[in-house]
């Protein structure tokens, strides 16, 4: 019997050693963290004179408009091609705080270098009152390519750890306070999405995560989609990205709940 105790003791030390080797993984302040490398976040458009038609024609999702150039981050796939071909005109900053509740705020205009942020007026008053301390979300992938789903899973790993803010993804719409939609919403998923939304008790919120969900992305003109759901319901938060970065999502939701410490 004694040897079993010794075995257990050794196993425990192994576990402690592994834990020790991980060090501190969590990001202490998700509102101020720096992302590594050359992340493509909020773009800045200069006043440089270039061939605007060529620039707009370049974009695979027609996110760029001309005559005072602007980029719609709800359509942008963040491929970065415009910044490669017209570096004097467009640069992508590492600002990952791209979420907003006002669709127009996703349109970045020439010579603009301001945080995107949420429109406080538009946030329904009950959101903070009811969900400020605890928000349970049901995720629905409706044609998502599994990249946004991946990153939403990452929001709950030991580094990003979204559950420390009382925000969790739950298994049933009955337990949820809202839904997070990824993907361009395929016709084959439209019915299931509607039923899932109906199963969430009132009051409830809707978050669109990723370019595909916000505008359809590269699939916008596909006949295989059915985006009617979006015209029938109010959207509380748009989270751009292809895929969304976990920090973009977390900061957006914290802003919606007014949880960000200033």
């Amino acid at each position, binding site marked *: 019997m004694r040897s079993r105790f010794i075995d257990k003791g050794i196993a425990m030390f192994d576990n402690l050693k592994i834990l020790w080797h991980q060090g501190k993984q969590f990001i202490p302040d998700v509102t101020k963290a720096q992302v590594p490398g050359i992340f493509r976040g909020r773009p800045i458009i200069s006043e440089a004179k270039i061939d605007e038609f060529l620039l707009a024609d370049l974009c695979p999702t027609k996110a760029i408009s001309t005559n005072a150039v602007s980029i719609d981050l709800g359509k942008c*796939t963040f491929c*970065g*091609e415009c910044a490669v071909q017209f570096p004097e005109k467009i640069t992508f900053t590492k600002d990952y705080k791209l979420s907003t509740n006002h669709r127009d705020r996703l349109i970045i205009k020439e010579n603009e270098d301001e945080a995107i942020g949420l429109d406080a007026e538009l946030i329904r008053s009950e959101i903070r009152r009811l969900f400020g301390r605890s928000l349970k979300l049901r995720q629905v992938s409706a044609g998502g*390519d599994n990249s946004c789903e991946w990153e939403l899973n990452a929001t709950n790993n030991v580094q990003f750890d979204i559950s420390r803010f009382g925000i969790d993804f739950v298994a*049933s719409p009955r337990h949820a306070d809202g839904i997070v939609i990824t993907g361009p919403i395929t*016709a*084959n998923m439209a019915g299931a999405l509607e039923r899932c939304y109906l199963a969430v008790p009132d009051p409830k919120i809707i978050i669109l995560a990723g370019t595909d969900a916000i505008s359809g992305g590269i699939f916008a003109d596909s006949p*295989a989609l059915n985006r009617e759901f979006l015209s029938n319901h109010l959207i509380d938060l748009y989270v751009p990205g292809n895929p969304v970065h976990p920090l973009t999502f977390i900061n957006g939701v914290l802003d919606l709940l007014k949880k960000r410490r200033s």
Partner: protein
Amino acid sequence: MKLKKTINIVNNQAINLVDIPVCNYRDFAELNLDLINGKPNCHCVSYFGYPIEEKIQLICCIADDELHQIMVSSSIVDKGAVLNSFTVRNPNFEKYEREIHENFRIGYTDHPWLKPLRYAFNRADKNEKVENYPFYGVESEELHEVGVGPIHAGIIEPGHFRFICNGEQIMHLEIQLGYQHRGIEPLFLQKQKLLERTTLAENIAGDTVVGHTTAFVNLWENLCGYTPDDSLHFSRILALELERIAIHTGDLAGVCADIGYQLGNSVFGRLRTPIVNFFQEWGGNRLGKGLIRAGKINYPFTNELAKRLIEVLNAYEKDFFEMTHKLFNLPSALSRMEKTGVVSYEEVLEIGTVGMAARMSGLNRDIRLSHPHNLYNSLTHKPVIKRHGDVYSRVQIRREEIRQSISYIRGLLQSVPEFHPPENFTEQPQKGKFIISLVEGWRGEICHCAITNAEANLILYKIKDPSHHNWMALAQSVRNNDISDFPICNKSFNLSYCGHDL
């Protein structure tokens, strides 16, 4: 004189469409069944139809892994024709024939499972609805059915699983897909710009961005008759191996979560981060979107990045192997993985699985060895093969492939080729060509095919994700297992819904 019935090509070789031999359907069937029946080294990599005038041309591509060749043959049949199926004599063709039936209303007299495949928007019979899938049912007082999905408990893609159980034991599982159908293949024809098509390829399956985009750019360059330099090949296989490490690590986290092993879940979950963050340091996106481009790369790989990657791998390797050592010596974990979700060699051969889902049961299928693309023929790749076909085999393959990928990357980094600044790729596709591009993604064999017409326009783009074959292996693996073991079986395969539904 005996007429030649197939044309033999290699991976990424563009041939004239008219050079594909056309034979009558009966000979076509005999020919292709003879090519694969009883030969484990041959399997069907793509079989599809496309409309020419009022008829349908069926093209079948059989890959021979020993000869490193792909044998292409074809037959022309009427729309709405009723044919004898291949499937009844070799189940490899099961999904292909269902697809042909769904798209072109071609009937099969003896197909054992002629059900809708993905409810494509351009399907022949619009009365078929995703809500009314004809599930297999059993009339019984003792058995019960369990339906799961399309929306699942976790943050994953949609699909419907219908179990027939005897108590806790699964007798049968049927998987209904199609919810993710975005109509990608027609979009490839509709969108004319290269960047649009590249973006589509990146969005086929977001967990295999590099795999699918590499298949597309390899195909596109060869269709244009363009030979990329070594720096592009280098960046592609480097990215492919990094993608393999990242996803395999995440899958190990998932398996640990499904057996309730929190330490493993946390450690593997966090180990994925430095790898995907390296993708971001290199190309600005954690999943490698924007990185792979035809004829160029916008983010050249530098010696500084090489140094940085070595640091990342050194730190990763230590913690990764410490954790796998623990996991693989933990009796409570092993007892959940060993002999769970077994698929035998005979079964995988019959289903025609590819990638990990073949190698888990002793079936050697790995495009890196059999039909090498990019620089793989210089690596002398040796596939990781296991024999038991259980969850444990699939988990072991991941550990060993990660070890292998790290050693390939270390080798590659010893001589980083010189990269050229990105220049626009302006080459145009050649006229009247057929081409097939195979890539070994982390999940297995990815196959893209394209056909151009006399005006050099794309008239067909066909995509096959490894999941196409492998979903049936998952359904097979859970038979006679407890229903509580379904999650771990599912995770150990980690198949793609959107890659299947397109």
